[in-house]
């Protein structure tokens, strides 16, 4: 259990945006600060992955502190590939738990759409072990999950259609989320016929390049949303080092720790945002987090259990696949959606007043994972 509470949230629209990296950061942060009632901020943490390589812009923490008039306070940028946002949030929590800070602003941001796909893919590849033989072989992030998916199909009854059903569900959710990147409905047929990115993953199975930012204000002072637990672990950095290709131990272990610290289990969770960087990843993560049995996550998809109306609603925001994936912002955007769910005013609001919510944010091919469990109190 932590003594940390969420006081305010903010998020820009996700998609292809004209605003600069800095403007996105300031817009989301201002909304979160206003939502929290403009408290005095003691520190700032920012999650960001490629501001330096793609936008030639660093010092993101100081930009916020200076341009939002927060004063001479400490500010820090946090990098953990696609888990940068979740790790920044955890650093904010730890700062409060240490007693050093009372109230912290955490923001996440990425600006990707202005660069070419090969250049962004190249920048994303910096989250691999770049000295490894498998990086030299040409493995990519989608490629890793393509290799995983083909083996998953081989060992289970799952097919490409199950992956398509994940993509379709998340698109249906995204269409009803005004902040999501993709407002256009699709169909199973369109998803299955889409061009291949890395076999068997097609265009709709892969999260897009996205511009966007999200922010959150947390404090030791009480609010109706309690951060019940926070966990983070590191895992294998190479595919050829995986003991079991169909398991991502960083996800499983971060989940186990978060449940243990919160004193509850997967059966208690009412609403979930997990890191569906690829449709395959969502299925594996639902297994690793204990919502479904190992190698049976695909059956839960078939039965509709992860839909908004299901018993384990996953990615009611549209997920990375349809809300969009501005890398450093994703971990914070997941929390934004869950706070809205717990407040009862979310896009795709789940029924029966959800009380416990879980966010899981992944970096690399399982190099980092964070889990946060939120509770309405």
């Amino acid at each position, binding site marked *: 259990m932590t003594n940390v509470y969420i006081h305010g949230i903010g998020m820009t629209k996700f998609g292809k945006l004209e605003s600069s990296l800095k403007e996105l950061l300031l817009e989301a942060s201002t909304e979160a600060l206003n939502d929290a009632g403009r408290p005095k901020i003691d520190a700032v943490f920012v999650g960001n992955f490629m501001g330096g390589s793609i936008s030639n812009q660093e010092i993101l923490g100081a930009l916020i502190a200076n341009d939002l008039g927060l004063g001479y306070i400490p500010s820090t940028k946090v990098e953990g590939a696609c888990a940068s946002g979740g790790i920044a949030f955890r650093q904010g929590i730890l700062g409060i738990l240490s007693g050093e800070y009372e109230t912290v602003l955490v923001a996440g941001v990425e600006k990707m759409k202005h660069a070419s796909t090969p250049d962004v893919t190249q920048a994303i590849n910096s989250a691999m072990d770049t000295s490894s*033989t498998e990086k030299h072989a040409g493995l990519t992030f989608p490629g890793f999950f*393509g*290799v995983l998916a083909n083996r998953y199909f081989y060992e289970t009854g799952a097919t490409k259609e199950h992956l398509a059903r994940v993509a379709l569900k998340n698109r249906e959710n995204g269409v009803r989320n005004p902040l999501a990147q993709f407002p256009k409905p699709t169909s199973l047929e369109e998803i299955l016929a889409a061009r291949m990115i890395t076999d068997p993953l097609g265009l709709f199975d892969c999260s897009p390049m996205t511009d966007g930012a999200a922010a959150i204000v947390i404090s030791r002072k009480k609010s109706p949303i309690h951060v019940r637990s926070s966990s983070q672990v590191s895992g294998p950095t190479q595919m*050829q080092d995986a003991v079991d290709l169909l398991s991502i131990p960083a996800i499983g272990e971060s989940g186990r720790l978060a449940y243990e610290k919160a004193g509850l289990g997967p059966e208690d969770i009412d609403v979930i945002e997990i890191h569906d960087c690829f449709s395959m990843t969502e299925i594996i993560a639902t297994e690793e987090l204990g919502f479904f049995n190992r190698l049976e996550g695909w059956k839960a998809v078939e039965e509709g259990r992860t839909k908004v109306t299901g018993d384990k609603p996953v990615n009611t925001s549209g997920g990375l696949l349809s809300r969009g994936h501005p890398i450093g912002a994703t971990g914070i955007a997941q929390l934004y959606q869950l706070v809205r769910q717990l407040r009862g005013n979310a896009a795709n609001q789940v029924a029966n007043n959800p009380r416990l919510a879980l966010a899981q944010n992944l970096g690399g091919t399982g190099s980092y994972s964070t889990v946060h469990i939120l509770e309405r109190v």
Partner: protein
Amino acid sequence: MKIYSCCGTDSITKKYACSKCSESKHEEKEVSDKGTVYSYTKIHIAPAEFADIAPYNVVLIDLDEANAKVTARIQEDVEIGDAVKLSRIENGAYVYEKIQNTSAVV
């Protein structure tokens, strides 16, 4: 192909320290580069440095003589269970090829 072993775990990557005993006493052994395809993908959308060879196949290979896997590029289209062997090492990458007319089941 060189394999590093410690505490019952084989790996083709040499770690500074073993995750189980924290020591740096890996035993090095030479094993055959032959193996079977554990899984695969064909990469159509490549990073800038590989764009000129796309689409290309990347495979995860289960080595026959060690409890270890190796990631490699391969010219031919393959299926899980296909028998493969090292063709060459090219720009730091293992490049494999199919062993014709044989097929092992994983």
